[in-house]
């Protein structure tokens, strides 16, 4: 094992303009928000974002102008409603929206994690989402070679970088995600590079006490960055809950056309005049 402990700046250098990214967590839970704010601060451009059910993580990057394309199963703010920047830019044609469905997106990650060019799934037949996916080239109808059953082959999704916020890791990249895992382990295995931001660094000795608690072994992790409160305002199980008030503040800013002020205050941390 060798140390992959990295500074915030070095870790964000793994993300090139135009990269295909996915993030850990789901909606308002354990998204790597501070890393995302750093991507905004660094002015990353033309990113393609892909995930099953993201929320503020995607919308913030979209709102800050970092994103060219989005592919999700659903992108909204749960009971608070639509994702404001996603909706606005998508309707204006300022971003390209390729809607998927949760299972094909998960299956695409799984295919890449398994080292397969594609993976079959059921369902999808009769949905216009299948039609547009066939046009895009991400899904194809096939017949199972044994049963002849109609299946949908989903093309592997191999993100350039998967960014995951976790509770704990050692300096070598042995990572402990606590509570719900979502598809984080699958995403990490699928991606070319894996950046993990953590609430807390622990020693390898501590990791060795409960190997069954390690969710990502070091050899699939490229960078570990210590970022306490790194998921805020999303939750980080065992550390803090979602700050739903902050999320509503975000939505109000977007609704009132004061999103730039939100960015200044909460992302760039510029003094307001």
């Amino acid at each position: 094992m060798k140390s992959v402990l990295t500074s915030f700046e070095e870790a964000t250098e793994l993300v090139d303009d135009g990269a295909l990214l996915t993030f850990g967590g789901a909606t308002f839970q354990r998204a790597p928000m501070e890393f995302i704010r750093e991507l905004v601060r660094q002015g990353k451009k033309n990113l393609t974002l892909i995930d099953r059910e993201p929320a503020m993580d995607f919308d913030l990057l979209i709102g800050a102008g970092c994103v060219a394309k989005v592919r999700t199963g659903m992108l909204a703010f749960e009971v608070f409603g639509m994702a404001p920047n996603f909706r606005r830019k998508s309707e204006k044609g300022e971003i390209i929206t390729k809607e998927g469905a949760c299972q094909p997106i998960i299956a695409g990650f799984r295919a890449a994690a398994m080292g397969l060019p594609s993976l079959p799934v059921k369902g999808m037949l009769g949905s216009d989402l299948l039609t547009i996916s066939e046009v895009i080239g991400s899904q194809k109808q096939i017949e199972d070679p044994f049963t002849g059953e109609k299946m949908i082959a989903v093309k592997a999704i191999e993100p350039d970088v998967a960014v995951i916020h976790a509770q704990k890791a050692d300096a070598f990249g042995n990572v402990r995600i606590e509570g719900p895992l979502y598809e984080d382990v699958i995403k990490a295995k699928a991606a070319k590079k894996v950046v993990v931001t953590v609430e807390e660094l622990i020693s390898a000795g501590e990791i060795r006490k409960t190997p069954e608690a390690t969710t990502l072994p070091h050899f699939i992790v490229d960078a570990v960055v210590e970022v306490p409160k790194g998921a805020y305002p999303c939750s980080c199980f065992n550390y803090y809950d979602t700050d739903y008030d902050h999320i509503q503040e975000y939505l109000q800013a977007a609704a009132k056309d004061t999103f730039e002020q939100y960015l200044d205050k909460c992302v760039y941390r510029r003094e307001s005049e």
Partner: protein
Amino acid sequence: MTDKIATPDLMVYAMASEIENFNTVLHGVSSPLPVLGMSVARRTHAPDMAYISGAEGVDSEIDRIYPSSFDPRLNRNAVAYFGLHEAFDLAQRGELNVMFLGAAQIDRFGNTNLSVIGKIDNPKVQLPGGAASAFLMPITPKVVIWATRHTFRVFVEAVDFVTGQGYNNRSEGCKKNKIVVVSNLGVMNFENPGRTMQIQSVHPGHTVDEIKENTGFDILAAPDVGETPVPDQDIVDLIDRIDPDGIRRSEFH
């Protein structure tokens, strides 16, 4: 009729009633009504159901809901974690019995739209997306669609985009499945030879005619159309206890 029961609570109860004991049931994102419905079912007529949360907990104690249906606090005292990809595998094996899904538009055949108003490549309204709809609707034995705004803009002659498959010509899968629609006005099913939407029951205080007027296609009434069963006060109290902040009412604004 008992004291007037609020519509969200009626809907929760109607959704709970669609679950049978021993069913394996999943809810997804943004699903306060399904979470409440599943919780009510498990504490009443379906104590042995397998409750799989979108937050990944199995058979958690749902003592409270949150604005996010993935909030890890929904996993309190779970017996296990079960990831969505595992639940989807279960669905592919035919072992997920009931799923709850939303709809921004729904047509007479049960096709739902959660993708776009207007054209997909030139959206008038960019909707959030269908999540698991396109995957689960053809392969899940029972799909319960909830719709909090029963109007002719939601119950439409033809959906702008087929996100979730109803009994359409291109989806063989759905033809075997049961689709139930629970709206703020009534409960609809497709239990007729043409597999078109019909009114199964009308919520207290509403009428068949009111549903027809608010539906954008010619909706039938089932021969045995009746009134939607009303929850007892202890169930209403249970719903209130789990959702003291009234999160369930957020979709009704």
